[in-house]
Each structure stands twice: as C-alpha cells, then as structure tokens.
C-alpha cells in the first residue's frame, strides 16, 4: 500500500461506507430519533381508552423505526455491501426463530384438560393445594380474578 493512506482507504471502501456524509445527514437522523422518543412518551401519556393492544403496537412500532434509523444511518448499513447488510440483519432475522418459543405458551391452554388451570374451580384437587399454591404470599389481589386465560397456564 504505497499510495497515501487516504487513497488506500478510499480505494478500500470504494463501495461502502467511506463516502463522507454531510453533517445534515446525521443531524436529520438525530432529529428523527428525538421526535420518535417524544412521540413514544406522548403515546404513553395519551389515554387510549382501553385499547391496550394499540398502545403497545404504537410503542413498539416507534421503537423499531428508531432502531431502523440507527442501524441504517448511524451504523452505515445503508452503505454496506450485500454481505454487510446480510450480517447486520441476521440477528434481527433470527430473533423471530427464538420467539417461536412463545407459540408454546399460546397453545398450552388448548389441551383438553381443565385441571391444567390453577384457578379452575372444577378441579377436585386437594383443597389446601388449590387455594394456596398459586399465590404463596400475596396479601392483595387486585386482579387475580381477571387474569388472562394465558396467565393461568402457568
């Protein structure tokens, strides 16, 4: 590499990443992230009127958009080679595979066994066990009764 280092670097990254971006590129990204953060807090403070799912979806969508901006612009994946992009998203693509674990919990309740549910009143299980085991030391129960069916699964 007898040529000047700058040239070497320029040569080395002819196709990705070395293009010096204008300052505005980074400030704009930063602004988008800030707006995202403010929106998240605003969505949190806003009363969605019993639409828990929507509020969750909004919060997570904003988080993912923000993450996308960080990865794409700050981490220069935008300028990376196909291989670079592939590895940048490999982890995020693989997480859903891990999340398959959750499917199990979604389906446990579908089995034909009423006794699976600790709170099920039908079970003829020994009384002491039934009444005590699931809440060993909880003096309070705001919400034991309206637990999701899923929550009862374990």
């Amino acid at each position, binding site marked *: 590499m007898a040529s000047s280092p700058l040239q070497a670097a320029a040569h080395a990254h002819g196709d990705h990443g070395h293009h010096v971006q204008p300052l505005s590129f980074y400030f704009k990204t930063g602004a988008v992230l800030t707006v995202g953060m403010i929106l998240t807090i605003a969505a949190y403070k806003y009363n969605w009127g019993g639409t828990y799912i929507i509020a969750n979806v909004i919060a997570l969508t904003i988080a993912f958009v923000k993450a996308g901006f960080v990865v794409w612009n700050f981490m220069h994946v935008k300028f990376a080679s196909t291989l670079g992009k592939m590895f940048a998203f490999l982890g995020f693509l693989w997480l859903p595979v891990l999340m398959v674990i959750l499917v199990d919990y979604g389906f446990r309740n579908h089995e034909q066994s009423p006794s699976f549910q*600790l709170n099920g009143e039908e079970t003829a299980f020994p009384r002491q066990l039934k009444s005590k085991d699931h809440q060993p030391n909880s003096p309070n129960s705001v919400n034991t009764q309206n637990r999701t069916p899923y929550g009862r699964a374990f």
Partner: protein
Amino acid sequence: MFNFPMTPPAASNFAGEHDALFYAITFLAVLFTLIVSFLVVFFALKYRRGTKADRSRPMYENLALELSWIIIPTILGLAFFGWGTKVYIDMRTPPKDAMEIFVIGKQWMWHVQHPNGVRENNTLHVPMGKPVKLTMISQDVIHAFYIPAFRVQYMVVPGRYTQMWFTPTKKGEYHLFCNMYCGTQHSEMGGRVVVLDPREYADWLANNGSKPQTLTVAQAGEKIFNKVGCNNCHGGADNQRAPSLAGIYGKTRVMTDGARYIADETYLREAILRPSNKITKGYINSMSAYEGQLTEEEVVSLLAYIKSGANPAASEPAMSSALAAKESRISEGTAGNYVGAMQFNSQRADATPTKRGNKMNAVGAMAAEKVGDQ
C-alpha cells in the same frame, strides 16, 4: 442367574400401539443400517486399491439418484410422523369418563390420592380395564412420572398441573420411576404400580387401602411425621434444608447464637410448634410453625416417634413398604406443607450437608420392600 428379557411388560392400552410403531420404526432403521453397512463394506472390498474392478466412467453427480434419496426418506418419514402423531394425540386426550387420581411429586417420593381420599406413597393402585387420568403437580423440582410397562411418562412440574392417562390391561405389579433428575435420591424415587381387578380395587379402596391395624404411639407418630410432611426436610441425613432427627433425643444441640440445649421433650416440642425460637446452627429459619395445627395427641405421637430413635432416613422407601400396609387415610395430606416448601426464602443460606450416604438405608429399604410385598 441372569435371564435376558428384551422387552418391558405390556400392560396398558398404549403398549400395543406403541410397540407396533416402535417395531415398525426399528425395522426401517435396521433395514437402512444394513443397506448402508453392506454397501460401504462391499465397496470398500470391491474397489479396494489394486482390485480388478471396473472403474470406467466414474460418476460424480446424479440428480435422479439424489432426488430419490431425498424424496423416499421424506415420504417414509412423513408416513411414520403421521402414524406417531395419531397415537400421540390419543395419548394426550383422556376420555371424559376417566377416573382422576392425583399425584404429588416431591423430593423424593410420590404421594398419590385416590378420588375417595385414600392416599398412598410410592405406590399406585389402579383398577384394570378402566381409563385412569393422573393429574400431577410437584412441590419442589421437576419430576417425571414414568411407568415403562404402560409406555407412559410425563413431567411433573411445580406450580402447574400436568396430566396423563392410560387404561391398565393386565394385572400385576410394575415399576414406577421418577425419570427426571431431581436430586440426591432421584434413583430411589419410585415404587410400584399395582393393577388390580376392579372388584379388588374397590375392596382395597373400601379398606382405606389396607387392613386397619392398631398402631403403637411411635408408629402413629411416624404416620403423622410423614403426613404432615416433616420427612420432606427432616428425612434422611442432615441435608441442606434441615438437620436429621435420627437419634436426636438427648443430644446437645448448638444454636445459631451459640446457645446449647439438650434435645429433650420440651425442646423438641418447641422446635415443632415454634421453630423460629431456636434455630440450629448451620440452618436458616425456614420451617413453618405448627402451633395450632397439630393436636396435642399428634405432638405426643411425634415425640414418641422421634424418641424411639427411628431413623427417618429409611422412612421414605420404608414407608412405602413396611408402613404402607398400615398406611390409612391421611386427612390433610402433605399438601398443607406445600406453601412452606415453596417459600422463596426457604433457601438455605450456608447449609453444610453431610456427606453421609444412604446406601445402607436403601438396601434396608429393599429388604423391607421384599418383606412388605409378602
């Protein structure tokens, strides 16, 4: 001396289905292995360097061949998958009229409760020809309830019920194993499954599982010891949760604050009813108080049992045999102890378990088991 049984007894409705499938897969497996082994050995000999085999036109790729050994195994696999899944769905779908028996697993015994309240330990009596559904829960760690002769097994998980079912089809006694590693005495956490005629089973239930006998006070104490669940922690040698009670009577005990007491009746009584008052050195305060929970009569019996010097270590297996015959209805069961055992802070902080083994006890239990089976 040795006989060579190659198969487990087949004593439930699933055994036949299971074995048919098992042998079918085994046939396929053997066939496949033989083909591969034969070809490998045959090629190795035939095409060994220097032999006069025909080596012209060597082949390096053959799509048809590749596809054939992709597609044929896939189809075979799917067929066996379908068959296996059908049987599996059966196994997971108990009939509506199944008799429900409750099983509680704990380190290291099985506690079984029949629908009418009859209880037994480490033994499961079931009527022949009737579908039985087991509803199971664990008090401590994960266990697995495994009856090889029935080809059924399922894990017993703390905090959540699991279930399995079967219909016994053959009278006899079969192995019952805990098949999920659960700690020191894992290999001895088992017993027998006894399949009875429905009539015999009814008799057995009616007699509370055994012929009633008069018990000595110490024997009654042993019963309570196991009933209340003292043996959960005080069973066997000193362990991480609690000191051993074997031969404790009359010994000097050292407390966490350094005080010393002779383990006499007063001390033992206080230790049962208000355990937090005096904590033995090396343990933390994890035992629940039994004040108000035991009648005086029961406390007396317990003291008699402890004074008799009985080694509670043997009580787990021995209970199932020597005492199982006398075991009668336990009205409250060990369930009451469940909460105590499950307290998050019931963890021993710096317990020092002794390394004393229990092999002798185990062998003793084996002998006792033989006697008990008579």
